[in-house]
């Protein structure tokens, strides 16, 4: 099962929460395989379980039932420390709220995972500067998040997710708070990273613009996969 061409695989995955004694199945028997280099959207209405599924795939939440493999490795029962290292080395996250640290500058925020990896300061600063140049954040390195526009903040969040060159990026509603111009720009950046570096992207979204540009759309309804369509115009 150590097939590197499979980025992530789930098998009969369930996540059940309890509200006042009533069971809520946020994710319901999801079996899904996403290959390396895919540009996938998880689409569905609010409350359908997109974020929960993304968190399960990203090892941020443990399943109630079922299994998760990442790059061919069964991570279902790995201890927290092992999962942390796995996330640090091979998964990038863009959260629904950007979650930048207000006390850190844009560059410092983007450097966080490199800092956690123990990379030395000069090297990580260089990497961030290169990336900022590519995604149109030139000259904004030393601004605090509250001095950045929503689109700029979201791009910093994307920079933080991809700067460590992870195999896979999980992005939760990355365009939700952006106007169409900003959202197009951000998608350009992500598409470019997908094309040039082969980074796997998985989005949770109900933004039609994003779905339009995805190469594959997995529709989620009530926690279950309702349809899985791969678009023909794919260059992967």
């Amino acid at each position, binding site marked *: 099962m150590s097939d590197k061409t499979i980025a992530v695989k789930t098998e009969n995955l369930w996540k059940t929460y309890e509200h006042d004694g009533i069971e809520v199945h946020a994710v319901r028997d999801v079996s899904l395989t996403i290959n390396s280099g895919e540009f996938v959207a998880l689409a569905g209405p609010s409350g359908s379980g997109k*974020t929960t599924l993304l*968190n399960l795939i*990203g090892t*941020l*939440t443990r399943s109630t039932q079922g299994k998760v493999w990442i790059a061919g490795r069964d991570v279902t029962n790995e201890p*927290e*420390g092992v999962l*942390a*290292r*796995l*996330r*640090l*080395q091979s*998964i990038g*996250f863009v*959260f*629904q*709220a950007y*979650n930048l*640290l207000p*006390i850190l500058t844009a560059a410092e925020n983007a450097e*966080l*995972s490199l*800092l*956690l990896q*123990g*990379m*030395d300061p000069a090297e990580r600063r260089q990497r961030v500067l290169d990336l900022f140049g590519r995604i149109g954040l030139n000259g904004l390195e030393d601004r605090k998040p509250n001095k950045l526009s929503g689109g700029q903040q979201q791009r910093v969040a994307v920079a*933080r997710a991809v700067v460590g060159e992870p195999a896979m990026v999980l992005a939760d509603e990355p365009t939700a708070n952006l106007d169409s111009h900003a959202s197009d720009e951000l998608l350009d950046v992500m598409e470019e990273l997908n094309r040039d570096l082969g980074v796997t992207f998985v989005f949770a979204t109900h933004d039609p613009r994003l779905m339009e540009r995805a190469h594959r759309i997995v529709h989620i309804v009530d926690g279950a996969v309702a349809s899985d369509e791969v678009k023909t115009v794919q260059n992967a």
Partner: protein
Amino acid sequence: MKKSPWWTIGWRNMGRSRRRTYITAAALAGGYFSIVVLVGLSRGIVAEMIANGTDLIAGQLQVHAPDYLPDKSIYETFGGVDRASIDSLLTIVESDPDISAAAPRVYAGGLIGSDNFTVPGQLMGVDVDRESSVSRIVRVDEGRLPRPGTNEAVLGGEMARQLEVAIGDELVVVAPSVDGSMGNDLFTVVGIYNSGIVELDATTVIVSIEALQYLIFLDEGQIHEIAAVVLDPWDAEDAADRLNPLLQSSGHEAEAVPWTELRPELVEYANLVSASEFIIVIVVFGMAIFGVANTMLMATYERRREFALLLALGASPWGVIKSVLAEAIALGFISILAGVVFTAPFLIWWHVAPLDLSFASGGFSMSGSYVSPVLRVEYPWSAIVVASVSLFGTAVLAATYPAIRSARLPAADTLAGR
């Protein structure tokens, strides 16, 4: 891992809520201050009590004939026939490295009479030259000390008052002697002392050792006691343990007794004070620990999204714990620094120039020891170490629970604001 990033993050967080950091550090430093100063003061009082309880007359160590105590019978002498045997004993006693001075003594009970009055008294025969480096009682307020071998006496102020005598007056001294007869002789008052303890001033008469030996028919080499000064009183037991075999092998029937055996109540008081030091440490840092824990809980709660983010990005839970502990250690370090900077001047000042409280109260005696109204502060080295260690311990202990809690945050839910 080339270099742990946690110190960087911890340090930056410290600066973030500067006000709270300062307040917490100040509280810890205050705890440090109270412990060191309180312990320093109480040790000063103990040291003062021991000094007063020993250096007035007793000395920190005494040598007696084995059965001399507790009755202090005049028959229980040691030494030899002539003065040379006393000198050889003194040489042995003073050979101990912790002993700085020693003086031989003879005691007798008797009646002291003036023209109109008679009072019972304790006669103390001393080697005048040696005695002044051993006890404070021979510091006369008026007049001078008796010359060796003469019938001269120094009285306490209270006895002089009762007998209505002054310097130059004559006394009749009657004392039972060792051959069963009554020795009696005339003595001239040459000096008056005031020890601060009325009972002593009313009863003890100081005469030369030769005169008292003659009065009660002792040989020149026979004495009741050698009193010795041990520079650090707490070394007295060791000194006694070293002296006893030496005395035995010299052929003298005599034994050394430290002040701790002579004055067990002083030792008990010192022990009580040590115990109370422990309680002070527990109470002060017990209070501090809740303050710090509360601060750390608040600080980490405010930053829970930050911890969740770091955990989600792949920080190890252990790394989060380390970062919170690093912050606590830095806090402890700053607090100790502040505590030392704040405490040292007071401690040195009070040690060098003890607070004189005599304007508020006179001296008083406590379990038979005169305590002067001066608050002397000893350098409480062990308390300084204990306070520093407990302060660090407090900071780290108080941070442990918040640290573990932060490391166990459910990353996804916390980031979603749940």
